[in-house]
């Protein structure tokens, strides 16, 4: 079955099955980046800034993938920042105060135990929210608004507000930083794997369509997608590798390792930071869950028509509980990243994260009307939000004004979504 030749740009895009909304978002991101680059006198689009941006965006990006599923099912989770704060505090206390007397400092198990505990707590808290929402019928808005207060209070309660530090050495790798990056060689390897993955997905999709004789994308579109995807992965690797370790740190490292420092100084590249790798893995896993599993299919069906999902025999309440439990797990991952990066668990950690996470999901094309949203979009949305935030800091905008801008952007994004839905309905 050949598609009839069409030549308008819109027809070309639709025959290539490329999401116009996604193109818009990428375009918006570039406008923001270039705008800040000019406004900041050329410091925004530097390897150093982009690398920092990627690290700072990862915690929000991880959580935004869960928020997509929640908003898709017409719920909301206002508690993610507080749940992050609570799990962070628990992970901090366990590794800094509870475990060392028992198993000693620098025990190789500490980070695993702390992380596992964080996950268990996150999942339990999320499942509890989900239970109250799904089985007791209290609206998610209220349950998680209560959670926003309650878990923040609980976080304070763990140490009566005291900041907990420092974190376990291995645990700190989760947060990135000089040592928490994978270095030049591994960065190229990861980028290579991503390229292979992109090509693999495209080839597999084409083979599936051939197998059943369905219409295929034009070959130019497949090539374009492959080139854009691989170009992006390799470009990101190049940027991450272009950001070297600070000279002092590199020299100290060379001394400790007994490496001779060459003429003209030693350059060791950061490469991708560990939290960025974590966020990428979470993104891939969540995309698989959302698009390739029954669970994901049910999430979207519930979002489209909850009654129809019920009549189709889907246990909608159980699915809802699982969605919130998954959100809890992602909060715990976000908490691990931010605790490791700060090298401390503080009482205020994650404050206002709910706003950024929801904004990331919505900017990324998740519709508050339910039923529509993508994981990739939300992660891009997280990058947009973080770009705004970092950019404003870079050009010296005051904190109160930053809040005003973020608030306006959130409302603007929802308005755009409303307009888009009205037009496409």
């Amino acid at each position, binding site marked *: 079955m050949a598609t009839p030749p069409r030549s308008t740009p819109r027809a070309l895009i639709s025959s290539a*099955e490329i999401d116009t909304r996604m193109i818009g978002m990428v375009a918006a991101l570039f406008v923001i980046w270039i705008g800040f680059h000019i406004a900041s006198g050329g410091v925004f689009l530097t390897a150093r800034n982009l690398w920092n941006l990627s690290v700072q965006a990862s915690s929000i990006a991880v959580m935004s993938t869960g928020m997509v599923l929640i908003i898709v099912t017409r719920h909301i989770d206002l508690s993610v920042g507080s749940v992050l704060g609570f799990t962070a505090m628990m992970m901090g206390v366990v590794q800094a105060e509870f475990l060392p007397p028992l198993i000693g400092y620098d025990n190789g198990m500490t980070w695993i135990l702390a992380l596992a505990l964080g996950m268990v707590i996150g999942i339990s808290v999320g499942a509890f929210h989900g239970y109250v929402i799904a089985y007791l019928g209290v609206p998610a808005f209220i349950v998680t608004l209560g959670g926003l207060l309650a878990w923040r209070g609980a976080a304070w309660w763990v140490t009566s507000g005291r900041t907990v530090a420092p974190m376990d050495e291995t645990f700190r790798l989760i947060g990135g930083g000089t040592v928490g990056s994978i270095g030049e060689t591994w960065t190229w390897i990861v980028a290579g794997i991503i390229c292979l993955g992109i090509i693999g997905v495209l080839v597999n999709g084409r083979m*599936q*369509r051939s*197998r*059943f004789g*369905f219409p295929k994308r034009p070959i130019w579109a497949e090539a374009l997608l492959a080139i854009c995807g691989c170009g992006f992965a390799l470009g990101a690797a190049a940027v991450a590798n272009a950001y070297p370790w600070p000279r002092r740190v590199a020299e100290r490292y060379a001394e400790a390792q007994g490496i001779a420092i060459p003429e003209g100084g030693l350059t060791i590249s950061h490469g991708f930071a560990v939290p960025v790798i974590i966020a990428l893995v979470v993104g891939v896993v969540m995309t*698989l869950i959302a*698009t*390739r*599993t*029954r669970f994901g*299919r*049910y999430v*979207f*069906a*519930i*979002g*489209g*028509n909850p*009654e*129809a*999902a*019920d*009549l*189709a*025999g*889907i246990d909608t309440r159980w699915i809802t509980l699982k969605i919130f439990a998954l959100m809890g797990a992602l909060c715990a991952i976000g908490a691990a990243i931010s605790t490791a990066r700060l090298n401390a668990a503080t009482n205020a950690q994650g404050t206002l994260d709910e706003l950024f996470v929801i904004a990331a999901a919505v900017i990324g094309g998740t519709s508050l009307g*339910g*039923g*529509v949203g993508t994981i990739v979009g939300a992660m891009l949305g997280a990058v947009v939000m973080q770009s705004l935030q970092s950019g404003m800091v870079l050009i010296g905008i005051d904190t109160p004004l930053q809040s005003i801008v973020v608030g306006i952007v959130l409302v603007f994004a929802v308005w755009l979504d409303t307009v888009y839905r009205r037009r496409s*309905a």
Partner: protein
Amino acid sequence: MTALVEMKDISISFGGVHAVEDVSVDLHPGEVVALLGHNGAGKSTLIKILSGAYRRDQGTIMVDGKEATIDNPRDAKAYGIETIYQTLALADNVDATANLFLGRELLTRWGTLDDGAMEAETRRVMNRLNPNFKRFKEPVKALSGGQRQSVAIARALLFNARILIMDEPTAALGPQETTQVAELTQQLKADGLGIFLISHDIHDVFDLADRLSVMKNGKLVGSARVEDVTKDEVLGMIILGKCPPGAIPGPGAATSEELAGIAS
């Protein structure tokens, strides 16, 4: 011969409203039973009890002569009861394939969705039902009313139903598609399915059904074989609740005093 389905003395109320009161109907293999009644008579509510969408307050449901436990839609499907709902009950934001297989997705050996196999099957079934249908990739929200109805019908046919419930299946269909559904109904009947057909079109009912039951204000007026009653008599049952001599009266049949009251 044991009945395929027997619903006995079924009652359900919403708040104070008795939507269905003491209604009994039955269905045999290879038979089409039509349910008739004015708007709000309780037809959809009655069949939603059979399909597991609502839980009855009272009454028993027998399938193959044995008491059946139907507490939710999954239970009903396990008995081979498939339903085309009046509201279609489609998830608007996903495509026809996702809707056809909703709740019963085919999986690959990795446990992931086998979209290819599901789409191939969807194309096969839809092609039989509505050969003009081509929009397999679009969310069903983007389809016309008739196309959406075709999707809902296809879904009910996909899983080898033994008992098919059709709540106004052709309300949105064009003449060609309506004929196709009528032919399909005959064919399914020949295959030995039992079909409950809800329709407002008396001509359709007389063409397709073997028996009919009429409801009024949640109660059963009466049941009859189509040969034993005329169209006018059936209209009398629907509008006045007047049970003709050819029909077996139910609890909702108007008494002669009531009818005299209307006439005067």
